[in-house]
């Protein structure tokens, strides 16, 4: 998903049978088998060769679920190829299964005729029983519809690392590298970046680094041998034709961290980030904790409430307070969000959504916190809400959140999700110098000062920070007088303050871009309207349908609240509106609330991103 929308080559995905459009590989194993590492290393090597890609890490909530069980299976899927890659792929072309449980959980998804690489050495009676198999699927016909490559990876790994004298347990940890070596060979990927990474990671244990490298090389060499025997062919996947520039791979969490730091530099104030560990949001805390040299202070609070409150305290004292969590944590922060809103302090609240309600599905993705973000507070408590649509886009969204927070003196909610946080894509590194600064100006003038004195246009109050002589003042959660900021319970005043807070946020609609059409035209049979991480599958599905002649367009909304000013009129130009969401129809409700638009809802809450094929079917049903 490396190209910019406007620069897409619409004719580039012509289907010539001799050309490989893309390949989807899924690495699956026990959560202790290092599948996430295998996947990210394959991704890195692929990206460095200029191939476009998208990934989907899918792992259990348990850190080390009992080994060999189906609920302990961890998987990493990557889709890569010479055409523009929009999603991690519906179904794998290649499944690498490191044990019976991984096979059991994932085989169903493998495309008919797809390639299955299995470690038969792991198909012991004990492991089969743990996975709940009565028979060995490797010999009972279960896998006959596939192109099967049965290898005793366990044995060959032990053989490859024998010379290093490691314990059996340590030696077996290199199984994933042996497998990675084989798959790198299969798709003509380079080993050098992996070797470099291993040397860095195990700098203090060169024996471990060497044994992993030996396993990697052995797997690679084995591929060459297999080819000679005619069991497997080696495929070269060409580089994608993407916009010129310097690229790196990036996950949503990385892009968010960079975007927040970039935002703070553009606002010219430092960050105080308060957070409490929660899946899948913790990665942002980890990323920012390493950026102290950029003036970032991170505070691992005692709970979610303390995390946001510390961020609010920091904003009161003149830093940019930022907090981050996932759905259940956001619920805990609600009261404090109201405080930030009524004291009109800048604050960025990042919500990496996961399956809910309650603890729900910690490691699975969902978009079901939209109601919570837009409506979920006591009192009339409007707050800008924006949503990232792709890993790299998290960078831009973070800057936008910072801009709105400091310009309008308001908390801003940034919605991302578990999929975006962990998924990786090639990212054209932006030219930081070309980004516009929006420096914060603290109030210093005591003449006529009161804490709720406002900018006439933005309605933002002035920001006077402790330490400024002559501007001593008190703020709080109680209603304050419009003209002095002192406590006021006067009825007319409460109406006026409520109106002001409301209008301040609604006015932001004048300061955001008009809604664009991601692909297609204004007017027509069908608009598919999405928000957040569903961008990839919707975009791919709409483009495919347009290629078959269907009259369908894709609109993807980033500013959830307030909505872009032209959105209502734009939606009215279509006969029908289809809204696919990974929830039970929350955005559809919001659009109905705002524009009285009846839409067709397409909802999925199975913890997985949408499959392109499912969307194509739905679009065909409506626009065909």
């Amino acid at each position, binding site marked *: 998903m490396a190209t910019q929308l406007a620069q897409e080559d619409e004719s580039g995905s012509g289907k010539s049978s001799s050309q490989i459009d893309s390949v989807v590989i899924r690495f699956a194993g026990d959560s202790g088998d290092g599948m996430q590492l295998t996947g990210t290393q394959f991704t890195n090597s692929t990206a460095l060769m200029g191939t476009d890609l998208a990934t989907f890490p899918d792992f259990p909530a348990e850190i080390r679920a009992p080994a060999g069980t189906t609920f302990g299976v961890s998987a990493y899927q990557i889709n890569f190829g010479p055409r523009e890659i929009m999603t991690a792929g519906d179904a794998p072309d290649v499944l690498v299964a490191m044990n019976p449980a991984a096979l059991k959980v994932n085989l169903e998804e493998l495309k008919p005729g797809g390639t299955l690489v299995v470690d038969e050495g792991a198909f012991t009676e004990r492991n089969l029983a743990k996975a709940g198999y009565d028979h060995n699927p490797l010999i009972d016909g279960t896998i006959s519809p596939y192109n099967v490559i049965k290898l005793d990876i366990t044995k060959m790994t032990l053989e490859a690392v024998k010379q290093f004298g490691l314990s059996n347990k340590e030696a077996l940890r290199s199984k994933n590298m042996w497998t990675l070596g084989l798959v790198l060979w299969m798709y003509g990927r380079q080993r050098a970046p992996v070797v470099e990474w291993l040397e860095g990671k195990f700098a203090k244990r060169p024996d471990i680094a060497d044994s992993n490298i030996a396993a990697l090389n052995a797997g690679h060499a084995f591929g060459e041998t297999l080819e000679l025997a005619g069991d497997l062919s080696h495929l070269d996947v060409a580089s994608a034709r993407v916009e010129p520039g*310097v690229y790196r791979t990036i996950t949503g969490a990385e892009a968010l961290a960079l975007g927040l730091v970039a935002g703070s530099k553009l606002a010219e104030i430092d960050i105080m980030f308060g957070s409490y560990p929660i899946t899948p949001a913790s990665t942002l805390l980890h990323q920012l904790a390493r950026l*102290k040299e950029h003036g970032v202070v991170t505070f691992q609070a005692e709970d979610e409430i*303390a995390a946001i409150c510390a961020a*609010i305290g*920091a904003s009161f004292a003149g830093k940019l*307070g930022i907090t981050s969590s996932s759905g259940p944590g956001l619920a805990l922060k609600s009261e404090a969000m109201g405080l930030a809103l009524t004291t009109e302090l800048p604050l960025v609240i990042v919500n990496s959504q996961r399956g809910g309600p309650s603890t729900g599905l910690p490691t699975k993705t969902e978009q079901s916190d939209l109601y919570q973000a837009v409506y979920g507070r006591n009192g009339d408590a409007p707050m800008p809400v924006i949503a990232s649509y792709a890993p790299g886009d998290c960078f831009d969204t973070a800057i936008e959140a910072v801009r709105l927070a400091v310009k309008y003196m308001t908390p801003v909610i940034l919605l991302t999700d578990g999929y975006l946080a962990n998924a990786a894509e090639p990212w054209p590194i932006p030219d930081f110098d070309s980004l516009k600064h929006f420096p914060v100006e603290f109030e210093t003038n005591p003449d006529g000062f009161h804490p709720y004195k406002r900018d006439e246009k933005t309605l933002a109050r002035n920001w006077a920070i402790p*330490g400024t002589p002559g501007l001593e003042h*008190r703020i*709080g959660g109680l209603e304050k007088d419009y003209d002095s900021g002192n406590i006021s319970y006067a009825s007319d005043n409460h109406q006026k303050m409520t109106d002001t807070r409301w209008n301040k946020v609604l006015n932001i609609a004048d300061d955001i871009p008009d809604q664009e059409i991601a692909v297609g035209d204004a007017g027509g049979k069908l608009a598919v309207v999405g928000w957040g991480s569903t961008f990839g599958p919707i975009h791919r599905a709409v483009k495919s349908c347009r290629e078959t002649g269907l009259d369908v367009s894709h609109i993807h909304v980033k500013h959830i609240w307030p909505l872009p000013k032209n959105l209502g009129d734009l939606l009215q130009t279509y006969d029908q509106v289809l809204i696919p969401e990974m929830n039970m129809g929350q955005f559809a409700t919001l659009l109905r609330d705002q524009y009285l638009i009846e839409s067709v809802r397409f909802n999925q809450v199975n913890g997985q991103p949408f499959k392109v094929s499912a969307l194509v079917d739905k679009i065909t049903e409506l626009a065909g």
Partner: protein
Amino acid sequence: MNELAPKKLTAKDFATDQEVRWCPGCGDYAILKSVQKTLADLEADPANTVFVSGIGCSSRFPYYMATYGFHTIHGRAPAIATGVKLANPDLDVWLVTGDGDGLSIGGNHMLHILRRNVDLQILLFNNEIYGLTKGQYSPTSRPGTNSPSSPGGSVEPNMNPCAFAVGASARFIARTIDTDQKHMPTILKRAREHRGASFVEIYQNCIVFNDNVFGDFTNKQVAADRQIHAEHGEPLIFGKEKDKGLRFSPGDHKIEVVTIGENGVTADDILVHDETDITIANMLIHLDGHDMPVVLGVLYCEPGQTYNDSVGERVAKAKEAKPNADMKELLFAGSTWTVD
């Protein structure tokens, strides 16, 4: 601030123009007066002073202080104050809370602000009751407290705020009484002087819902015999005649009250207060003012590294290690490739 001719501020200069809205006769008035006087005595800079509070009667305090102030939400003042201090460690931060705000809904935050040793002053107004919500029993209410939510008497055991502070690894623990206008400023000064989280429990009388709950040791006629003012390095002597004292009873090492001149007890037998000794502090904290006198003053003071200093040092070190850290370098970190 006029830099040319700095005018010495008085207590009045620390008062705002806001009408104070506590009940007539509330102990909070005396505390407010004492704090304003202390800040004036210490020549504190109002522009550099921040009062942060939660919710409850005590938490209205910031509105009456002509400094910076933040009246926040129930129980969360410690978290907000931590953020203030992390954002600007040079600010002089005071946290005002009560027994409900600070020990019930905000108990968790109180634990962690003490444990982290954030450099600020915590004034916990303990009146053993929820005042602003009209008189329900609180975590410090003694069992049997009659209240709207405990008709017939509360059944919950109460907690000891200073003992809680010990458990939370606080490094400065002190006690005083709302109406003791001589004692309180000395304690407030010590609290401000201490680098780290200074925990001050103030026995505060709620005239409406829990009047005279501390009468056993605060009423004038009994005060001298029921209070000990602990001073570092001084024997723990009390009584109208200054003839009573505390000592470890021979044999079982419990604290007992003795009279100097009786049963062979001399002044040398009296326990000398060592505010750096947590074991002594812990024993003094538990004397309850009924069978034993209540101990006031600085019970424990053992400074240590503050949280805000540690965090600041880490940031400074990171900046020193990478003095030219800029955004571009950060964006291009790791593996990159160029598409022509």
